[in-house]
């Protein structure tokens, strides 16, 4: 279906008529309104922390003492028969134990490695899933699989679907905001695209620096008064055109300019952290500098500080009702130098993510804010023995099993779900396909993944696969 048609559908099925129409499709609010959920929602907004590149689960969450024992040994060749790897040479590959110390945390005794001491203190709010698997083992297709539910191009991302389904609660900010730290990811802008949904459902990137949204700042010589005056005339002229043409699209345009004007105030206000207490700023670690021995993750010397700031901005966005925040950091693709690189990245994200969860909780926002930490796939228990490399210091891509965690938004805290075998090769209980994760995510928002559809190219499309039966995981839901 094209936007004209869907708007028309809205018009014909809505009592609000032309006046209400002006507001539709703008930052996506009121397209459907919050009343359109399929059942009572638990979560109202989502902060998705996307660690692009595939973090090593057995060095962070999935404790495998047996793997350490088998360090340097070959693994059962049967398991390798049908496997394909990016770089790993099957015939000579050997298992690689983790150098990390693991301990249990919280009432639930959830395992965390020493790299995440702060996140570990949130154990009882965390729902840890260790049995995810995906169909993709290259980055960009894998990232699309996670964000869009399918490895192909041209599809909407999770944030687009949720905004399409629910609209935004904030009338001055976009419903889908993207925050980036460090270098670019494999997927680039496709990780927050709206695909075949109208671009009003695409993620809007918030930037660092004094212009938080692209083109937010008026040109030199146009002050607020000149801007307002111009926009008033613009509104009058567009209204005259509307009287003539009676095209509701003109009303949308008028509203879009008004919203743009409001964003000019709302977005800088969002990024202005002067009202935050010193204690808050310190808890997120805003003034942290990258350690000198940092890995590739740095991209600039300020990755740690930027990531901290993004986490704080994510809370401020959630506070303002922004439906979906996609917080992206690339550089978890540790084929070599795993130990120092992972230390750098974990150091970057541990403190601010823990601060975010606690801050949301203290402000009473965590119940309705779903925080998700995850990536496109996991890493191999085998050390990567790429041709021409002297030592195994990293791990290859592994789609069979990986770990993600969630907090808040109606998920069960203190739950460790799913289990992998002794070496973390594959799930031995409760395997969760990426699409099952998507189905559950939508469920938390009160949306049935089979019914949240959009007609495109003659078919009803959705976030989950049309050919595979995806299942909501009821165990995760509090």
């Amino acid at each position, binding site marked *: 279906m094209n936007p004209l048609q869907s708007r028309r559908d809205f018009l014909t099925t809505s009592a609000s008529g032309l006046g209400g129409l002006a507001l539709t499709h703008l930052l996506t609010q009121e397209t459907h309104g919050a009343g359109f959920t399929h059942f009572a929602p638990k979560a109202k907004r989502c902060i998705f922390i996307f660690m692009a590149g595939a973090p090593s689960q057995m060095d962070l969450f999935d404790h495998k003492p047996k793997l350490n024992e088998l360090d340097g040994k070959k693994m059962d060749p049967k398991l390798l028969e049908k496997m394909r790897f990016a770089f790993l040479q099957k015939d000579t590959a050997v298992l690689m134990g983790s150098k990390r110390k693991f301990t249990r945390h919280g009432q639930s005794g959830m395992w965390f490695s020493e790299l995440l001491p702060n996140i570990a203190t949130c154990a009882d709010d965390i729902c840890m899933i260790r049995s995810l698997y995906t169909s993709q083992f*290259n980055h960009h297709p894998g990232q699309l699989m996670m964000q869009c539910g399918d490895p192909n191009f041209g599809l909407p991302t999770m944030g687009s679907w949720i905004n399409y389904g629910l609209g935004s609660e904030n009338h001055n900010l976009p419903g889908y905001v993207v925050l980036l730290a460090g270098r670019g990811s*494999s*997927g680039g802008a496709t990780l927050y695209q709206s695909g075949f949904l109208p671009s009003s459902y695409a993620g809007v990137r918030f930037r660092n620096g004094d212009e938080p949204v692209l083109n937010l700042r008026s040109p030199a010589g146009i002050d607020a008064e000149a801007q307002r005056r111009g926009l008033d*005339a613009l509104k009058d*002229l567009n209204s005259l055109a509307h009287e003539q043409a009676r095209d509701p699209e003109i009303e949308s345009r008028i509203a879009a300019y008004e919203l743009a004007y409001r964003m000019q105030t709302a977005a800088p206000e969002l990024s202005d952290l002067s009202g935050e207490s010193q204690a808050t700023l310190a808890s997120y670690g805003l003034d942290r500098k990258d350690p000198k021995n940092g890995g590739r993750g740095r991209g600039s010397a300020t990755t740690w500080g930027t990531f901290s700031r993004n986490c704080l901005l994510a809370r401020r966005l959630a506070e303002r009702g922004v439906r979906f925040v996609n917080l992206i950091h690339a550089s978890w693709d540790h084929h070599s130098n795993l130990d120092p690189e992972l230390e750098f990245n974990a150091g970057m994200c541990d403190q601010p993510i823990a601060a975010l969860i606690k801050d949301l909780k203290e402000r009473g926002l965590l119940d309705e804010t779903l925080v998700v930490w995850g990536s496109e796939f996991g890493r191999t228990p085998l050390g990567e023995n790429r041709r021409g490399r002297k030592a195994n210091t990293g791990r290859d891509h592994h789609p069979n099993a990986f770990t993600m965690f969630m907090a808040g938004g109606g998920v069960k805290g203190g739950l460790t779900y799913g289990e992998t075998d002794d070496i973390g090769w594959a799930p031995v209980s409760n395997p969760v396909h990426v699409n099952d994760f998507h189905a559950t995510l939508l469920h938390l928002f009160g949306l049935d993944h089979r019914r949240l559809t959009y007609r495109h190219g003659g078919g009803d499309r959705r976030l989950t696969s049309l050919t595979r039966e995806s299942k909501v995981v009821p165990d995760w839901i509090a």
Partner: protein
Amino acid sequence: MLRSTSFLAILGITSLSSPAEPIDFTSQVQPLLNKRCAECHGGVKQKGDLTLTNREQALQGGTSGDPLLVPGKPAESELFRRLTHDDPDERMPPKHPLPDSEIAIIKRWISEGATWPEHWAYRRLKNPNVPPQASPWARTEIDRFVLRKLDAAAIPPSPPAKPTTLLRRLHLDLTGLPPTVEELEAFEKRWDEDPEACLETTVDLLLTSPHFGERWGRHWLDQARYADSDGYEKDNARPHAWVFRDWVIQAINEDMPLDQFTIEQMAGDLLEAPTPDQRVATAFHRQTLWNREGGTDQEEDRVKRTIDRVATTARSWLGLTVECAQCHDHPYDPITQREFYQFFAFFNNANEKAIQIPNKKGGRKQEVHVMIRNGQRKTYLLQRGDFLQPDIEGGEIKGGGIAFLHQMKRKDAEAPTRLDLANWIVSPENPLTARVLANTIWMHLFGQGLSRTPDNFGSQGSAPSHPELLDWLASTLVSEGWSRKKLIKTIVLSNTYRQAVRHRNDADIPEMDPENRLLHRQNRRRVEAEIVRDLHLTVSGQLDHRIGGKSVFPPIPLDVAAQSFANNYKWKVSEGPNRYRRGLYTFFKRTAPDPNLMTFDCPDSNISITQRNISNTPTMALATLQNAVFHEAAQAFAKRLLTQRGGRDERALLTHAYRIALSRAPTEKELTILGKLLEDYQQHYQDDPKAAEALAAKWIPEGESAISAAPWIATLRILTNLDEFITRN
């Protein structure tokens, strides 16, 4: 979908038929069967050996042996019996009985004879009889088809658009550039003398403009998923991709017949003694993405690219979603999995290769990446579409067509080639190609196709609002030598095209034709991303009108360029006139495209797109109000206007600005509003000379000052932000 709209949408035109009219299978029954039954009784699963997605198979019935349909007798028809059975174990669909309204449709359809016509798009193309001229309005054949439907619905057509509106419409539709004031004046003069002759001359001029090829070339490049980089993580630059883009522009400017246009892009290399241009044409299939991420299986990616070539060919020419048949038979259309691999076999034997061709501008040879033949590779059916699971036992699959369509003539049945495929696509027996191409041309001139799913003419697609008109257009396209330009001319000279865009709320029209499916008016729509740029640069006088050449790098924000993977590509901003080229020449970096394009719904070129989205967002408003490119255009526009001030007073100068920007004079009301704004700004910048300096900067024409120029910049900035400015009315 959350509302029941998807269903309403499929039934789109149902509301147009009155209760007395018989049930229409295509628009009322088939969507229902597809939606409610095809999941178990379609191409993927055939429970009880029953398939309900096409006539032949459905009428065979299932294993039960009971007749599926007894015309006139619902109670004896197994279909109806099962839908209404009291026993939940017998009733279909299991667990979810159909709503009464849908059962009623099926019942009435069977009572009325259960006619199951051949699918509209698969019927052999015949030139339909043109309805008689019912009124003077119905001047052309197109108008007669349109008026017949409007008359049946008792909706009179809209009055014609104002002449200058029509002029701007034609300019934007045919070249994507607004008329200059000189063109506007000449047009007005000729119109007063003889409107019909004036219009025809205008259309002829626009069709011969070299900008025609840019405008219509860009439409085609969307379908070709053209870009200047590989895509995926590495997203390496393709420094020679533009050679194909220029081929498209030139072919369209020369009005290369669409059958030839097809053959050269499919198989130019296989023609006898192919010219360099014919080899370049095959780069259509070189536009696929290429994943060079470390550790990718290159064979897997090659298969993926090949599948994309099959899918793109089928969607762009045949309106078929054959890619649905890569893992299993097509769920809704009569295309088997084996047939998918017959199609696949043609492209499986094509390789990408860099060749040298003579440089048109002289000098060194030009490199370009094209497709060449590789006869070595054998094709097998890939089980579940997995390249690691070829069905060797099933035997080698040779290139071939789709059985339910016409037969494919193969020069050598042992070694069919892409040329056989190309000839099959453009064969006069092919019911799809001409319909698909004609519908797409119509879509670019009305904003909507007659079928609203331009790349899906299968049973899940939308049936055309005017099937006979579509057939007439398709037949005319073929009989007029597959000329794109002739068909466009025929369409734009019709009264249907010339109608005003005004939404009518008289005579209950919105009730009766809310989506304008009956074409009771023209459709008003925002121009595409590239044209937004072109419009701003044209009125500012900055546009560099040169055609073709290497892609260019207008300024984009540094942090956008830096978002390419690991910052692996440097965006070196073009200098001089190349900063001001038309939007279609902007270097398209797939993972970090120019936000000024993406904000306005430019496709990301990762997949073939026939129809673009049109959305309306605050980020668009921010772009045209604040972005450096558009702001500089407002500054240049003011400088240009003030240079032409002459003896004009402010009202006259504002009127002149309106004519430059919108190809019309302002109304008195508009002039008052804009005049007042200018006055306010004059006071504002009088009071704040520093702001005036900042705004006028280096854009002060001779004889003016910052204080006199700044108010004009601020005012014209608003004029070029009007909804009308970026709208094709």
